[in-house]
Each structure stands twice: as C-alpha cells, then as structure tokens.
C-alpha cells in the first residue's frame, strides 16, 4: 500500500514537472536553455508513463516509457544541440509574444484545459485528478510555442512539446494509443528531427538565416 501511494505521489510530482517545464519553455530566451528544458520535460513524461505502468500493471507501457526516455529525452535534444551548433544561428529565441504575454497566455491555456478536461475526467483510465488537464495544458502550450516563435528550430521544439502533451493525454485516457502507434510516433519524431535538420541546413545555406517569418516573402 505504502509503495503504491508513494508511486501515486511521485506520479503527481512528475506530471507537475511536465507542466512547469512547459511553462519554462515559454519564458526561455536562449535556444539551448529551451532544448535543455524540453529534455527535462521528456524525462518527466517518461517517468510519468513508467509510474502509470507500475500502478496499473500494464507492462507494455514500460516499453513506451523507455522509448520516450531514449528518443525524446536523449536523442532528440542531442540532435537539436547539433543543429544549433552546426547552423551557427543567433542563440536567442525570436518571439512574436513577449515573455510576460507568453506566461499569461500559458495560464489562460491551463484554465482552458481545466474547463475542457474536467468533464472528461470520469472517462479517463488513470484516476489521477490532475493528469488529464496537465497533459492538455502541455499540449496547448506546445501549440502556442509553435505559433508564437519566429525561428524554425524553436517551432520544432514547440511541436515536440505538443507531442509530449499528446503522449501524456493518450496514456491518461486509454493507457496509450496502442503500443505500435506510440512506437511509430517515436520513429516519426526521429525522422522529423532529421528532416528538420536537413531543411534548416538548406534554409541556412540559401537564405543565410532560419527565420520562418522571412519565408512569407516567397509567397507570390
């Protein structure tokens, strides 16, 4: 009993870490700090999934937790760091919304996700009260990050934060979208990172910057 209640407390904490790191992603101004925070978030998500596997005795989730840790927390941040180094881009995150606005929007998104996820709570397989709203908020904050940042590389991080949110929501609702779907997703992310790397390198070569905003000039 005590062991599983400890696991339940740890689940609460690791879910909270996922939310706090999503918020921190909104306020970082350096790209390397953003990537490091994303790595911590992915580790927290992996631990959350592992704890759910332990608490609800669903062994295939252990595999998912291990994959999440390996791909999202280790390989992807490493690839991103390599991209940052090889592109020699400006180290600052370009923002459309200021740090303060971003933080406040993050709060609004948490409120929104609490309203949306509240009625869903009885449907969820995992009965931790906070997990579903927290995962929705992580998803939405990732989406906002994707929208409000100027450089392609930070937009990729936004997409990855969104993916973490989707993973958590999926596990909370249905013990995951099915192991094979999740594994395919992880593989997809890897491909995405590689494509993004090639794309960014080409973009840097052609235009000498990675500012996605400037691509609008190409529209007819």
């Amino acid at each position: 009993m005590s062991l599983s209640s400890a696991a339940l407390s740890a689940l609460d904490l690791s879910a909270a870490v996922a939310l706090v790191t999503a918020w921190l992603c909104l306020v970082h101004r350096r790209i390397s700090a953003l990537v490091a925070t994303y790595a911590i978030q992915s580790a927290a998500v992996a631990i959350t999934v592992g704890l759910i596997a332990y608490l609800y005795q669903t062994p295939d989730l252990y595999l998912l937790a291990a994959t999440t840790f390996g791909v999202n927390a280790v390989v992807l941040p490493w690839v991103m760091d390599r991209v940052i180094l090889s592109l020699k881009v400006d180290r600052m995150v370009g923002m459309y919304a200021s740090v303060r606005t971003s933080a406040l929007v993050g709060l609004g998104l948490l409120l929104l996700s609490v309203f949306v996820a509240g009625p869903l709570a009885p449907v969820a397989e995992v009965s931790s009260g906070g997990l579903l709203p927290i995962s929705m908020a992580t998803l939405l904050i990732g989406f906002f990050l994707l929208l409000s940042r100027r450089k392609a590389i930070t937009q990729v991080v936004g997409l990855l934060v969104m993916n973490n949110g989707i993973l958590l929501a999926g596990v909370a609702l249905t013990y995951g979208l099915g192991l094979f779907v999740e594994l395919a997703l992880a593989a997809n992310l890897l491909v995405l990172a590689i494509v993004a790397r090639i794309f960014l390198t080409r973009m840097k070569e052609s235009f000498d910057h990675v500012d996605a905003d400037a691509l609008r000039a190409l529209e007819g």
Partner: protein
Amino acid sequence: MTFDLAEQLVLFALQYLVVLALGPLLLGLGRRVRARAQGRAGASLLQVYRDLWKLLRKDVVYSESSSWLTRYAPGISFAALLAGIPLIPWLVLPTPLGYIGDLVVLVGLLALSRFIIALAALDAGSAFGGMGSTREMWMGALAEPAFLLVIFAFGGPVGSLQAGVIAASGVALGLAYVHPSLLLAIVAYVLLLLVETGRLPVDNPATHLELTMVHEAMVLEYSGRDLALIEWGQGVKLAMMIGLLAALALPWGLATSWGLVALLVAVGVLALKLAGGHYIVSIFETRLAKWRLFRVADLMTLAVVLAFGSLVLIYMVGGGA
C-alpha cells in the same frame, strides 16, 4: 500533543535564539559557497560574526541633513523581522504562540521592514539612496502579489493560512500532502525568494558598483551599529524566507514532543534544511549573471502565473491523485 504555556514560552525564546544566531552564519555560508564555485578560497564562516562585532563597537556617523527617520529606521526594520519570526514553525509543532498571526501578517511585516528602509534611504537626499529605494519598492510591488498568491497556494488545500497549521497537516498527511499544485507553488516561491532576499539575477549582494546596486544603494549612508543591525537583519530575513519554504514544502523533521533529544534533533534538522536550501540557492546564483532591471517583471510574472496555476489545480481540479 500540545505544550503548556511555560514550555511554549521556553520554546518561543529558544527559536529566537537559534534564528538570530544562525542568520549571519547563513550569509557566511552563501559567500563561502560562491567563493568556492569561483575558484577562490573564501572567508571563514565566522567572518560575518567578526564583521558584526566590529561594526557594533564603531561610532555611528549621520549625515547633517538627515532626520530622526535615519536614526530609527534600522531598529524598526529589524523589529518588524523579529515580529515575524514566531509566525514560522522553526523547531516544534504546534508552533509556540503561533496563533498570534498568519502568513498574511508575515508578508505585511516583511513589507514594513522593506518600506522603512526605503523611506530612510530618501531621507539624506543622496542620489544613490533614491535610486535604490525606487528600485526596491518597484520590485516589492511586483513581489507582493506573487507572495500572497503563493501563500494561498500552500494554504489552500489545508484551509488555513497559519504556517504552523499547514506544516502540521503536512506531517499528518505524509505522502498524501504531495499534490501537483505543491511543485508549482514551490517553484514560484523560489523565484520570489530570489527577489525578496536580493539574490543574483535580481540584485548582486557583493557588488561595489553603485549603478547596479539595489539594497546596497539604500544602506550606503549607514555605519556602525546601525549597519550591523541592517546586515544582521538581512541574515535573519534570509533564514526566514528559507525557513518558511522548508516548513511549508518539507515539514517533516519538526519536533512534536518536549524533550532534550527531540529539541536537539529539531535544531539539527533546521540547520540542515537552512544550510541545504541556501547552498542550492548560492550554487544556482553562481550560474547566473545579473539581469537587466526590467526583466525582474518577467520573473515575477512567471511567479504570479505559477502560483495562480497552482490555485487553479487546487480549486478546479482538486482532490489530488
């Protein structure tokens, strides 16, 4: 278990003794940790006590253009801090005479202590004093809403704003005290602690450049025993801010029974918590440069948002796992 009045009075005096004695040590520890992290040997931990003793024996010099405010401000500021000490559980639960006030009173007392020093800084009419006090009051205005929200976030699940009651429920609940909202509140509190105690991204306590000073700029006019009181007060305030976090976030280890062994253990645990907390803050500090002043608003917005998010999780999601 409760204590009778005599025991409470003894404990009341004991916690004053411990906090007043440990405050300067904490300052010394922070300086030592920063020195070591920068590759310097650093002064002895006892150097702060020697400095205080030296200052206490020196004459006080007042500017001719200053009024009674400059003379009384250090005392009032220190007294406000002293009045706040019993509101925090230091050694035992229930807190001796802890019912005399809650955490909102504590926030008020810290604000009074800051306000009176800022006012006195304007008194002599020097330019640096004015700069320091505008900056300090601006930061204070940003920090106070965050502080109150953080307190509500800690007290919300318990339904009380008395630190002793919150800590007691933490000890009673054990692991069930842990809730996602707790982590958000802790992170918000740590951001707040950096501003309240003037730590590095916000204010550099070791600076000698007047243009970047905040707290130091306000106390430039002071000398002798007045300066000693201000420095000592800084140590005490640091101990109070870390002690409050330790009591709210990590309430385990407070003594609940009367006895020499229990009290000694409680003193040891308290020293460990304070030193550990300040060690982490100091290490964190060595990895940061001072920020542009107006970015403090970003930091405090984040603290407000985290504390508010914590309240949202408590009242709209509720229950915990």
